[in-house]
């Protein structure tokens, strides 16, 4: 039997291009432009899948991206929507959720026990006795779910792009095209999107043979396609609405993130099914789905059709089917024919029988539809004494619509039920959200054109800043297009409300009886609307059932919450690439050329160590050894570097840092500790004084921008006369550390490095290799050392000259790992590693940096005054016995006492200087107050014993870094 029709006026298929594909191993042919479902239906393959729970045969329903029972498995992808996804040559398809074939599914036997599987069965049954749960879980999991993920998947990358417009119009049907055009004519920059590959919307399938719209269709399509102010995206879904009109547009090639100034929703309506026994048989379809099949794919899904309707759309569908050569055995109108007007007359004129005030009591068929029982409506069911049986293989359901308003709900809009239209319509719209067309209850062509023009005018006025609100109801239809109760009771059930989840009318009624009588509860208990179509053809009927059972109106019953995304979005469209800027020091190329292995430090890349990764630990140890015995050099350009200038500079630093900076002598530096209002340590660095009103401040690598921000906050909000310059990027910094540093540096600089001229913690300005530099004599790693701050373009030359000058003494560049070990040996903490979001100075032994008495104020002072006497933790040094394995204890390992956690390791490393593993632990105060040893639980569960030791581990008197220690206490 041939299911393919003669060419249709607006068909999407290319008849000169044949596509061959297989389904369940059988070969099929279709045309390019066919969807999977239409290609199969054209070959008479009416069963497209099996239902989720009972494995009942299912066919096509909507052809509108909502067919949750026609999901296919390709080699690469599960759950491909057959109703809209285009066929590709050589596709190998099977149905999802089938055990066997769609014609013979072994799991279909589950239906025989269906009456023992009422709604909520799983929740109530399988958790007792507890020990059997794993068995049940395994069985349920193997039966649940739909397609199978191919774990040998190829990574697909899709690019993202950004777009901007004045106005986004969603939906390129009659209303969308008309409103986009009117707005574009008013000089707005318009983006028009439609999920279908071709524009036209329902004009092309519901009014395909209507001569009165022919000229209108052509002129609108031509105009929106060529208008210079309209960008048209087809095959593109607006899948969500986010604040300030930020909408992800899902295209076949990736996601466009669109920022619009306003949005017109012309998304139309989604057809709803009638509920009668066996309304899920293949052959029972939405009338609009049949019309889509006919006009888009030139496929007729049956030979003898019965139409069930309660609106004029059903009569139009009857005429379209008649036109396509399908015998229309009868039109069953649930209401009176009197209100159907000219469309009914045209149907009658074709000799088609119309039964008014009738319903379909039951559809009958073994695997697909064969017959239907029709009888006059009576109460909640039918009067069977007057039943008639019609032979048919197609039922067109045309009993109502719901607006595609998901994005309006997401934007905060509200809809209310209109008793005239028996449909939800927009009632309240947030700023910049506009609606028109059938979504807004305008159904006739004239109403839709007028509504579209009016909404365009409203949007234009809004974007011009004029306050104009229109009467949303002005162009709404005055007759209903939806039936208030398209539901027919049947004692044997199988009258499905939700095809996705196999929910029958009685399932919802039972759930309500069990007390789940609120729409959100009903949804969660029964799972209505939770399947792949997300309730697009089940929510409305569920609301009707609940409303009637509770004796409430539809508005009082309400609807469930709509959240993004409107349709499933492939992960490839969402997955991002690394889009994080990486900062590199001016010496990066030199490091690369010298085998540096890089690590991330905040936004920067820093050398972790130099050498082969196979010898990582040895390289690090050698670098440490070089600094301790001779000379090391490290790139510290990533340090935050801020100039602080002005009459209030000292005052600013006094406010921002705990220690007093106003007493700092010119040419000297001081350790600087920053805490927040709660007294928690947030940054440290050094402050150096260049003049009475000029300071130079360094901050940690990852906190540089935040420190600048905090300083600028005080400048602004305390009204200080200070100028700040963040020179983090413009200056480089090099630290030269080791006993030989003075000897190597002295010949290259104009600054005298003598102890008397340049003591420990001093800061001097001068020339180095001819470049203006600042030298700071810092402890840093606990050796005699100089930090060189210099223009970034001087960094490479100076570094290279220092390397040459240091060659004789064995200079060695060192990386971040060696620096950490060196600083750990000195007991210096790393902010953010040895401290966390609650650590205050008293917990890390830095009471010397908190001058509570000598300073009237600094940020966090009142909190620290309180915390001084109530420490809850203490940072303590420990070491393992000599010869203990070097990598056994790791950071974050727990300290255990009597099976209780009493602390954790914050830093740990093997110290070549101490010849043992050393580290820091943050201990609970009560345990810190004891002198008990420290037992650390390592990865394999063993407890490793460590001994406490005082800090610093290395050179506790600081003799190596200074011969004249300046007292930093204030």
């Amino acid at each position, binding site marked *: 039997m041939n299911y393919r029709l003669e060419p249709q006026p607006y068909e999407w298929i290319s008849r000169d291009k044949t596509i061959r594909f297989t389904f369940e191993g059988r070969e099929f042919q279709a045309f390019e432009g066919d969807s999977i479902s239409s290609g199969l239906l054209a070959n008479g393959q009416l069963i497209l899948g099996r239902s989720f729970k009972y494995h009942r045969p299912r066919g096509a329903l909507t052809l509108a991206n909502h067919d949750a029972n026609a999901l296919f498995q390709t080699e690469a992808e599960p759950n491909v929507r057959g109703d809209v996804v285009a066929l590709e040559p050589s596709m190998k398809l099977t149905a999802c959720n089938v055990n066997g074939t769609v014609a013979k599914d072994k799991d279909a036997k589950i239906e025989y026990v269906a009456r023992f599987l009422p709604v909520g069965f799983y929740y109530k049954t399988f958790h007792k006795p507890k020990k059997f749960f794993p068995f049940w879980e395994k069985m349920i999991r193997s039966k649940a779910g739909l397609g199978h993920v191919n774990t040998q998947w190829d990574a697909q990358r899709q690019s993202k792009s950004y777009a901007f417009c004045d106005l986004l119009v969603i939906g390129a049907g009659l209303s969308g095209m008309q409103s986009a055009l009117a707005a574009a004519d008013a000089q707005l920059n318009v983006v028009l999107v439609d999920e279908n590959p071709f524009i036209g919307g329902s004009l092309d399938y519901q009014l395909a043979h209507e001569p009165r719209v022919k000229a209108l269709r052509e002129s609108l399509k031509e105009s929106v396609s060529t208008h210079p102010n309209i960008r048209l995206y087809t095959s593109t879904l607006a899948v969500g609405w986010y604040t300030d009109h930020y909408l992800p547009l899902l295209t076949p090639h990736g996601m466009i993130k669109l920022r619009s100034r306003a949005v017109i929703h012309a998304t139309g309506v989604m057809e709803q099914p009638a509920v009668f026994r066996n309304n899920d048989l293949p052959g029972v379809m939405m009338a609009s789905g049949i019309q889509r099949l006919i006009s888009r794919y030139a496929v007729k899904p049956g030979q003898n059709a019965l139409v069930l309707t309660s609106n004029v759309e059903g009569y139009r569908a009857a005429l379209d089917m008649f036109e396509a050569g399908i015998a229309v055995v009868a039109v069953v109108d649930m209401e009176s024919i009197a209100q159907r007007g000219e469309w009914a007359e045209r149907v009658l004129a074709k000799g088609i029988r119309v039964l008014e005030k009738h319903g379909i009591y039951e559809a009958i068929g073994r695997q697909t539809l064969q017959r239907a029982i029709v009888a006059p409506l009576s109460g909640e069911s039918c009067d069977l004494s007057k039943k008639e049986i019609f032979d048919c293989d197609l039922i067109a359901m045309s009993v109502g619509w719901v607006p595609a308003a998901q994005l309006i709900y997401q934007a905060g809009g509200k809809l209310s039920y209109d008793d005239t239209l028996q449909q939800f319509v927009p009632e309240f719209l947030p700023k910049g959200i506009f609606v028109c067309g059938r979504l807004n209850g305008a159904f006739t062509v004239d109403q839709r054109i007028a509504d579209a023009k009016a909404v365009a005018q409203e949007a234009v006025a809004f974007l011009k800043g004029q306050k104009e609100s229109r009467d949303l109801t002005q162009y709404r239809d005055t007759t209903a297009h939806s039936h208030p109760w398209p539901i027919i009771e049947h004692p044997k059930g199988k009258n499905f409300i939700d095809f996705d989840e196999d929910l029958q009318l009685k399932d919802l009624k039972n759930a309500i009886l069990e007390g789940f009588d609120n729409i959100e509860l009903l949804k969660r208990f029964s799972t209505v609307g939770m399947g792949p179509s997300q309730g697009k053809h089940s929510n409305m009927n569920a609301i009707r059932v609940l409303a009637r059972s509770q004796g409430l109106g539809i508005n009082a019953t309400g609807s469930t919450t709509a959240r993004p995304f409107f349709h499933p979005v492939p992960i490839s469209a969402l997955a991002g690439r690394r889009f994080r800027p990486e900062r590199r020091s001016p010496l990066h190329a030199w490091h690369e050329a010298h085998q540096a292995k890089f690590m991330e430090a905040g936004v920067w890349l820093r050398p972790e160590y130099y050498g082969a990764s196979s010898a990582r630990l040895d390289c690090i140890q050698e670098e440490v050894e070089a600094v301790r015995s001779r000379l090391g050099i490290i790139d510290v350009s990533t340090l935050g570097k801020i100039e602080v200038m002005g009459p209030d500079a000292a005052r600013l630093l006094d406010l921002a840092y705990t220690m007093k900076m106003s007493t700092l002598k010119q040419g000297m530096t001081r350790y600087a500790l920053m805490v927040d209002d709660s007294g928690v340590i947030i940054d440290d660095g050094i402050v150096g004084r260049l003049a009475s009103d000029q300071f130079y401040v360094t901050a940690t690598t990852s906190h540089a921008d935040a420190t600048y921000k905090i300083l*600028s906050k005080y400048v602004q909000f305390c009204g200080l006369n200070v100028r700040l310059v963040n020179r983090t990027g413009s200056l480089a910094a090099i630290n030269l550390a080791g006993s030989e540093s003075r000897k190597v540096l002295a010949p290259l600089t104009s600054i005298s490095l003598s102890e008397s001229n340049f003591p420990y913690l001093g800061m001097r300005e001068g020339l180095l290799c001819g470049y203006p530099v600042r030298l700071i004599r810092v402890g840093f790693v606990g050796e005699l050392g100089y930090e060189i701050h210099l223009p970034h373009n001087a960094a490479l030359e100076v570094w290279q000259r220092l390397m040459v000058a240091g060659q004789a003494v064995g200079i060695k560049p060192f990386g971040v790992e060696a620096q950490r070990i060196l600083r750990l040996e000195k007991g210096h903490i790393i902010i953010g590693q040895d401290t966390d979001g609650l650590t205050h100075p008293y917990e890390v032994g830095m009471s010397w940096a908190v001058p509570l008495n000598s300073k009237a104020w600094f940020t966090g002072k009142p*909190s620290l005054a309180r915390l001084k006497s109530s420490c809850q933790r203490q940072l303590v040094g420990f070491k393992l016995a000599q010869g203990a394995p070097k990598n056994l204890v790791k950071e974050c390992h727990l300290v255990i006492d009597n099976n209780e956690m009493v602390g954790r390791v914050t830093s740990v490393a093997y110290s070549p200087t101490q010849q043992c593993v050393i580290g820091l632990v943050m201990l609970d105060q009560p345990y810190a107050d004891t002198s008990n040893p420290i037992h650390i639980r390592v990865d394999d569960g063993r407890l490793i014993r460590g001994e406490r030791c005082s800090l610093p581990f290395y050179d506790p008197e600081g003799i190596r870094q200074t011969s004249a220690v300046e007292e930093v206490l204030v």
Partner: protein
Amino acid sequence: MKLLDCPVIGKRPISEFDYMGEIRIPPVDADEKTWSEYVFNRKGAPCSLREAWYHRPTGRWYVVVRNTVTDEIEAHVDISEVQYELPA
């Protein structure tokens, strides 16, 4: 809010800003309870709030009045109006 409609520099993506919360003055000589309130508690009730926003690309601070329900920026406040003094 994805865009901050700053009365001074116009509409900018929110990602360019750091939110620094309601304008509050540290209660310098307060008792412990008042100080704890200041440190740990914030007003959550919907209102028109005077807030500090830091614009990272330019390193500038803005004080605006924002309706925390509708996210509309209702006014720009000159920083001099909210400046405070701290003990020296």
